[in-house]
C-alpha cells in the first residue's frame, strides 16, 4: 500500500499542494465553501478524520489534492459508486462526493439515477460548469443549446440541455438542492445541510467556466434563494423548471428544492448496525 497518513499536516483543512485551477475559476469558491461547511461541522463536534471524499476526474477533481480529509480520487464518472463503497466500508464516516457535470450526467449517469434507489447516506456536490473543460471544451448534457465547441456540426450544440434536478427528483433522490459557486457563504450552508441529511443528498452547484464556457458566466442577477423547501413535488417541479439551463432571462432558484426521509442503504443491513452502534472504525474495527 502507498498512502502514508497525511495527518502530519496538522488539523488544517488546507494542504500544501499548489492549486492549478485557472485564475478566477469558481472552483476556488467551491473549495472555500467546502472548507467552511466542514469547519462548521467540526465546530459542532464532527471529527476531521471522520470525513472522506470521493472524486471523479475533471477540473473539479483537483479539489482532492487541496482538501485535507481522507478520500479516494476515483475514475471519471465513478465518484458515486466510489462514495457508496466508502460508506459501506465504514458507515461512521461522513462521505462527500465531488463530481463534475460530465462525470455525473454523461459518463456516470446510471450511478446518478441509481443513487436515488440506493439512498446511501452520502452528499454529492456537482460542479456544473456545463462544459468538459479539462479536455478543452466539449459539450456535456447540461451545456446550453448553441454552446460553442469543436465537435458538434457547425460548431454549436444543437440540442437542449437536461435539467439535472428534474432527473434527481424523478430518480427518487431524497435531498435536492442548487447552489451558486460564486456565493461560498450560502453554498457552505447548503453543503452542511446536505451532509447532515440522512440519505443521498444532491447539490447542483452552478459554476462559471472562465475559459471554455464564458457565455454562461455572471448569472447572479437571475438568481434568488428559496424562502422554504417545497412540500409537494408539484411545487418543487415548478421551481426547478424556472431555469432550463439555456441562456436567458429566466429566474434561477437556489436552495433546497426537495427533502424527504427514506431508509438508507446502510439501514438495510443488520450486519452494519454493530459498526454504527459501537462507533468502530468500519470493518477493521469490528470483532468478527
Amino acid at each position, binding site marked *: 500500500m502507498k498512502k502514508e497518513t497525511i495527518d502530519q499536516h496538522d488539523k488544517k483543512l488546507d494542504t500544501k499542494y499548489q492549486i492549478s485551477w485557472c485564475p478566477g475559476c469558481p472552483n476556488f469558491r467551491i473549495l472555500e465553501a467546502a472548507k467552511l461547511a466542514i469547519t462548521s461541522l467540526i465546530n459542532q463536534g464532527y471529527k476531521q478524520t471522520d470525513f472522506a471524499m470521493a472524486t471523479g476526474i475533471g477540473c473539479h477533481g483537483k479539489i*482532492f489534492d487541496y482538501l485535507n480529509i481522507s478520500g479516494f480520487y476515483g475514475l471519471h464518472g465513478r465518484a458515486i*459508486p466510489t462514495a457508496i463503497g466508502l460508506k459501506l466500508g465504514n458507515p461512521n464516516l461522513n462521505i462527500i462526493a465531488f463530481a463534475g457535470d460530465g462525470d455525473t450526467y454523461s459518463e456516470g449517469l446510471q450511478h446518478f439515477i441509481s443513487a436515488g434507489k440506493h439512498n446511501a447516506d452520502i452528499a454529492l456536490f456537482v460542479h456544473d460548469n456545463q462544459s468538459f473543460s479539462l479536455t478543452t471544451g466539449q459539450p456535456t448534457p447540461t451545456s446550453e443549446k448553441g454552446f460553442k465547441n469543436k465537435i458538434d456540426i457547425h460548431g454549436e450544440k444543437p440540442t437542449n440541455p437536461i435539467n439535472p434536478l428534474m432527473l434527481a427528483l424523478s430518480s427518487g433522490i431524497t435531498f435536492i438542492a442548487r447552489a451558486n459557486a460564486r456565493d461560498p457563504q450560502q453554498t457552505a450552508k447548503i453543503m452542511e445541510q446536505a451532509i447532515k441529511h440522512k440519505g443521498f443528498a444532491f447539490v447542483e452547484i452552478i459554476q462559471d467556466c472562465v475559459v471554455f464556457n464564458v457565455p454562461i458566466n455572471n448569472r447572479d442577477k437571475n438568481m434568488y434563494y428559496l424562502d422554504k423547501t417545497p412540500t409537494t413535488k408539484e411545487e418543487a417541479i415548478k421551481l426547478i423548471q424556472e431555469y432550463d439551463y439555456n441562456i436567458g432571462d429566466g429566474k434561477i432558484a437556489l436552495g433546497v428544492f426537495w427533502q424527504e426521509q427514506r431508509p438508507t442503504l446502510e439501514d438495510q443491513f443488520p*450486519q452494519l448496525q454493530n459498526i454504527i452502534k459501537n462507533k468502530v472504525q468500519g470493518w477493521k474495527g469490528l470483532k468478527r
Partner: protein
Amino acid sequence: MRLNIVIGGRAGQGINLVSKIVSSVLTQQGYFTFNYRDYPSIIRGGHNFNVLSISDEKIESHESTIDGIVAMDDLTMEVHKKELKKSGFIIKPDSFLEFGINLNVALAAALMKILGIKKDVLNDEIKQSIKKNVEDALKASDAGYASETTKIQLPAPHPNKIRIISGSEAIAEGAANSHIDAYIAYPMTPSTAVLQILASQQEKLGHIVFQPEGEIAVVNSALAVSFAGARTMIGTSGGGFALMNEGISLQGQSEVPLVVYLVSRPGPATGVPTYTSQGDLNLALRAGHGEFPRVVIAPGTPKEAIEKTNEAFYLSEQHGVLSIILSDKHLAESEFSLVEPINKPTKIQIKRKVPGETIIKATSYEHDDIGNTTEDADIAYKNGLKRLKKYEEIKKSCQKFEMIKIHGKKDSKNLIIGWGSTAGAIKDAIKDLDAKFLQVLYIKPLSSEIKKHIEESSNVLLIENNLTGQLGRLIREKTGISVKKRILKFDARPFHSDILKQQIIKELIS
C-alpha cells in the same frame, strides 16, 4: 466400477432434485458421485440434462457412454438413446405422470431400486430433501420404487466421509473461511451462484452482499469498500469483467486490495452463456490498461477452490495486489464428492491504516508517498520500478503455496499440462496410463518448476478447454518452449474423461 446416468427433462421439471436425492443417498453410503449439469439459457421448457457419474473410487468427471437414462420427457430418450450402452436401462415417465410435480421423485426412486438401494434409506433422504407435502412425494417414491427390479449390483463401498459440493459453493466457502466482509456483484451466469450463496449467508456470517447497478459500479464501489478496511471480493464472468477493466487498472494504481472471482463461459460477446470454456485466461492476465502486478489462480476442484480463495485474499491484502480466482462454468456448476480435509485457512488481517483512524488517500493518478497527484518524471519512474519490485515480492510470497500439482505416474516421461476445470477429466483419464499430469494452479506468477518438468519429459501434451491453447502460449512466453502436441476442445462443452483417455493414448502414448 463406474456408472454414468443421464437424467433429463424440460427446464422446470426438477431434474436437479433427482441428482440430489440419488447422489446424496449414494455418497452417504460411501460411493463417489460427480454430477455434470447441461442446460440451455431457458427458464421453462427446452432440454436440460445432468450426467450423474457414480463410482466406488474417487471420480471428478463424467463419461460419454451411458448406463442408464432417467427420462422426464420423450425428448430426453430421443437425444440420449445413441449414447446408451446395449445393456443400458431407460426409466420412462409414462406411468408416473399422475404424480405431477413429484414425477422426479418417482423416477429417482425407480433408479434407486435399479441400483439396489434400500427403501428406508431412500425415504429418509426424501424426508430430508422435501419439506412441503412430503406425503405426496413418498407416494410417488413408493410407486417408482415398486416399478423396477434391481439390475445393478453396486460393489461394497469404502467407508468414506463424503460431502457433495459444487465449485460455486467452494468459492463461497473459501470466502467465508477468509472472513469476507463485503461481496459485491452484478448477476451474470455462471458467477451468480456465488452471489446467491453469499447473500443467503450474510446475516448468519456477518458480511454484506451488495448488487449495484452494473459491473462498473461493482468494481469502483468494491475498491472503496476495501480502501475503507473491508475484506472484499467481487464476482463476474468474462463480459462483466471486460466492463470492469478500467476499475481493474484503478486497482493497479491505487494498490487497494481486491479479490476477483472470474468464472468464464464461451465468448466472444454473449457467446454460449450457460456452457463452459477456458477462453478467458488471456483476459485475466491482461485486463486493465497500464502495467501493474497481479495474481491469477486457477483451482481445478472444490477443495482447491476453497483453499485458493483464501490464498487470493491473503496475497491481495498482504501486497495490495489484484488477486483473480479464475474458474469456469464446468467447475462452478458441477457437483463433486469432496473427501479430503481442507487446509486450515490463513487469517486475513487488515494492518493498513484506514479512513477514520487517520487522514489517508487512495488515488487513480500517479502519486507521491502521501497520495498527492503528480506528473513528475522521477516519481513516475520510481513508481514504475516499485511496481516491478512488488511483483518480485509477490512471487516470493506465492512460493509458500502449492503453485503446481503433479498427478498420475510421477516418474512417467509422458507429461500432460493443463489447468482449471479440465483437471478432473484429465486425472480420471490417465488412471491406468503411463502419464504424468502437471496441473498449473498459479498462472501468474507461473512456477519455474514447469520448465524442469517439460525438460525431463520425452513427450509433452497440452490440454485446454479453449480454441488457441492460451496456457501453452504463456508457457512459451515464460520458458521459450513451445508445446506442439495439443488437445483443445472449444465446442462450449467440457471433456468427457473416456473420450479424452482415447485422445491421450493417441497423442501421447502410442
